[in-house]
């Protein structure tokens, strides 16, 4: 069980949860108003994710995969239902509260890498630590870049790196802050199959080393197969 003590700055609603539940949702739903009426993107999602679990969310385009992880990561707010992370209802937090929660508990890996183009590889990896005020940011970032095989590329900017290298920087950035939960949105989607396979290996190795709960969205059946559990979404509902 992850027992990070975080101060989210506001009164937390304590949700009763078993010891090893890191994420729990209840009746989670997301809908938007359109000109043709209400569009339900997600409906009645009840989900429990245990600490250290690796989960693949699969489904067709438009099935609500990205919306689900954006809700779970606190990037967006649901229209109905609750989400608790480590027993604390993030649905009751304001945006800054969720930001603090993300900084403490959550790491991300994106399909399009999302590195800051102006910063070097090491500076990109240092970012989450610097935002946390960590004094050893540089040393930790250098160490982790070494771990992902980019020790020689520390001062290169994203433009000077290949796609695979950029995603390795992104992996280093995701793990450097020791997140409890890692969200990965199509992490190999922009890479060729060979490079994608290497990145997948690295992702699972790091996940194992850091005991992180991994939640990834993918179209890639082989990637999904490496996760302990697969959740399939269809038209906004879990099958």
């Amino acid at each position: 069980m992850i027992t990070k003590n975080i101060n989210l700055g506001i009164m937390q609603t304590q949700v009763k949860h078993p010891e090893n539940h890191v994420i729990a949702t209840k009746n989670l739903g997301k809908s938007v108003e359109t000109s043709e009426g209400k569009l339900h993107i997600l409906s009645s999602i009840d989900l429990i994710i245990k600490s250290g679990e690796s989960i693949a969310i699969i489904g067709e385009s438009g099935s609500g995969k990205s919306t689900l992880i954006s809700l779970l990561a606190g990037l967006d707010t649901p229209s109905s239902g609750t989400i608790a992370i480590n027993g604390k209802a993030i649905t009751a937090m304001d945006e800054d509260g969720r930001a603090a929660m993300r900084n403490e508990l959550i790491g991300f890996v994106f399909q399009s890498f999302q590195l800051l183009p102006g910063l070097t590889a090491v500076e990109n990896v240092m970012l989450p630590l610097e935002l946390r005020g960590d004094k050893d940011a540089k040393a930790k970032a250098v160490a982790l870049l070494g771990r992902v095989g980019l020790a020689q590329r520390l001062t290169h900017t994203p433009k000077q790196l290949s796609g695979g290298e950029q995603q390795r920087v992104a992996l280093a950035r995701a793990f450097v802050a020791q997140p409890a939960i890692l969200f990965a949105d199509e992490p190999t989607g922009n890479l060729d199959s060979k490079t994608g396979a290497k990145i997948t290996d690295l992702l699972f190795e790091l996940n194992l080393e850091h005991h992180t709960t991994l939640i990834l969205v993918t179209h890639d059946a082989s990637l999904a197969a490496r996760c302990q559990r697969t959740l399939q979404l269809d038209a906004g509902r879990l099958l």
Partner: protein
Amino acid sequence: MSRFNLALRLLWRDSRSGELTILLAALIIAVTSSTAIALFSDRLQRTMNEQTAEFLAADLVVASPRPVPTEWLAKAMELQLASARTVEFSSVLIEHDEMLLASVKAVSSGYPLRGHLKTVTTDFAQETVSYQGPDAGTVWLEKRILAALKLKLGDTLTVGEKALTISRILTYEPDKQGDFFSFSPRVLIHEADLQATRIVQPGSHVHYFFQFKGDAVALDTFKSWLKPRLNPSQRVLDIHEDRPELGSALTRAERYMGLSSIMVVLIAGVAIAMAARRYSERHFNATALLRCLGCKQQEILWLYGSQFLVLGLAASALGCALGWLAQAGLFYVLRDLLPPHVAAAHISAVWFGFVIGLAVLLGFALPPLLRLKHVSPLRVLRRELAPLPSSAWLVYGLAIAIIGVLVWNYTDDLKLTGTILGVGLLALLVLGVLVYALLQVLRRALPSLRLSWRLGVQGLVRDSRASVSQMLAFSLTLVAMVLSFAVRTELVDNWQQQLPDNAPNHFVLNIVPDQQVAFKQELQQQHIAGSAFFPVVRGRLVEINQTPVQKIVSKDSQGERATQRELSLTWTQQLPDENKLVAGAWWQTAQKGLVSVEQKLAENLNIKVGDRLRFTVGSEQLEATVANIRALRWDTMKPNFYMIFSPGTLDAYPSTLLTSFYLSKDQKILLNSLAKRYPSITILEVDAILLQIKTLLAQLTLAINYLLYFALMAGFTVLFAAVYASLDSRIYEGAVLRTLGAKRSLLNVSHIIEFGVLGLISGVLAVAMSEAITYALYTRVMNMAFHPSFYLWAIVPVIGAVFVGAVGCWGVRDVLNKSPLRVLRDG
């Protein structure tokens, strides 16, 4: 600290990758131009003040009929003011059986404290500039005296009982004023010889002028210290009090320069707002990532705010340095046209530029920056999510507040600030709505247009609000230029009209009535066009409605000075030209006992129509009823009178006549024959004063011209900022069109159409706005007549189209040159 380091690092990387170039350039130009203008205006104003001080030959003068207490001079010394003294009196000179009434001036060694004297030694010699008067034992004379008294250089002239050697011919004297002592030709001697002339005896009619020079603060202190110690016969003179016609010219010029500077700041501000908006939009993704990684909203604000603060400090410092160089260069280029001694730059002007830089950055860049705070972290997954635009109140409110403070700071006039802001805002609002409506009409016409026109016009109507802002921004640039041009031309014309080339430059006083016919004939024979002859009776205003005037007037007011001395009283049947009735009615029939009073004097003395005024003329007294109040312009250099009586009222008193005429330099010698034939007359030569005023005007015009170039430079930054603000989407669209087979020429023509139409509409708007502002300024503030300028309506829109079209097309050249494949791949 690590967050600040992060901010610095982001700033450094952004600036290296060119992200900040436009913003930085706009800010540097804003600071450079405002610093340069502040410094330039400051130095020019100081120089002009110093030049104006030349009219007094000092910064401050105490005029007194007798020497002032030594304690006053000690106080001046304590305040580190330099001092000098002149003593003026009239004396009859007799040489070779010829007699001439001359105005003698004995000067101390420090004279003149400001300005210089000019002398020659032969007729054709070049004038020599001297910064001190004649040595003891020598005398400098006006050339007329030599002719009149049959003397030449090197001869001896006896002044009173002292024989002095004539060493130079005096051609220019800075403080020669149009009062009694300037009427007769000048004799300049050293103070050391004064006693030996034995002219100045107790009770003699002598004027002492104690002159002081020093820094403004010390002068102010001295002036405040002096005022309570002055007795009624003593006066303090400085440029604003003693020469109202120059004071108002300077005030007007200062205001105009200030307004031009604000235009430059406003235009640069628009450029900064556009560049900051682009910067902000290009940082949405990075901000979303930072938010995703756990950055709070306040931290985002701090992160970018601290970057902008560093940017502002650096750009302001650089801009100040460049501004200093720019004005130094400007003065270097103008060195032949400006006086030899240009006042030094003052550090406060540099500081002002620095503060302006930060204020403009705050006012114009903060709203787009605040948008970053609202970037959703979800944007990392969904790029189309953009934060809501900043509130219009915030965007415009801040900018208006900053500009308002600046306008007020420059004009120091709430009424003028209100007028400028009010009219400007109203015009922007009305024009904004009009342009929006026009764009909607264009949008409807789209389907019927040819492809190149459709693409061009589509560029304008796609984002109507952005197009409206761009057009208003370009319009502002053009307005600044049109206003500078129109107001400058008008302002100078106005002054020139006041002082036409053949403005009377000589006044003749004390013409005995019997001589009037003969004198008029003499002028006609010499082909000299004279003005009307005005009868003059010297009298003093003593009572208003039976209350002594001394009890009514305030110290140092115009009213005080008017009651301190004898006034020239005249009478006429007709209201003189350039006089305007403001209250009461002009007398139609011969009604005795009426008087017309000049408006400002009436205000100072609280004189109303129907009041009874009592005058003393010689030993007699005279009463008259105020029939009307007249406004007139003192800066026309024509005979003007405080008091004009109805015909017959002054018949009982001895009068002389006054006239004025224009005399060219070649005709100057005629003055001698006039003076000889009519020994009683007094000739006042005002051409030297006119020349000084014209020189001042020429320099003002020059300064204003240069301010125009700064407005132009700021205009360029707006143009580029606007073009670059939309460059990303233009490049993308261009790539799509080219991929679909559009030729470069089609894109090129559509760009010409888009920017040409943008410039054309902006030009029309600019003329409309500048006409509105000019109308408001002229009729409400400057009290001048307004005439619409039809030629502006024809020229400015064309200039707008060509100017905006050319620069716009150059700015978007990347749309044609970037590889479509690369653009589309980079997304």
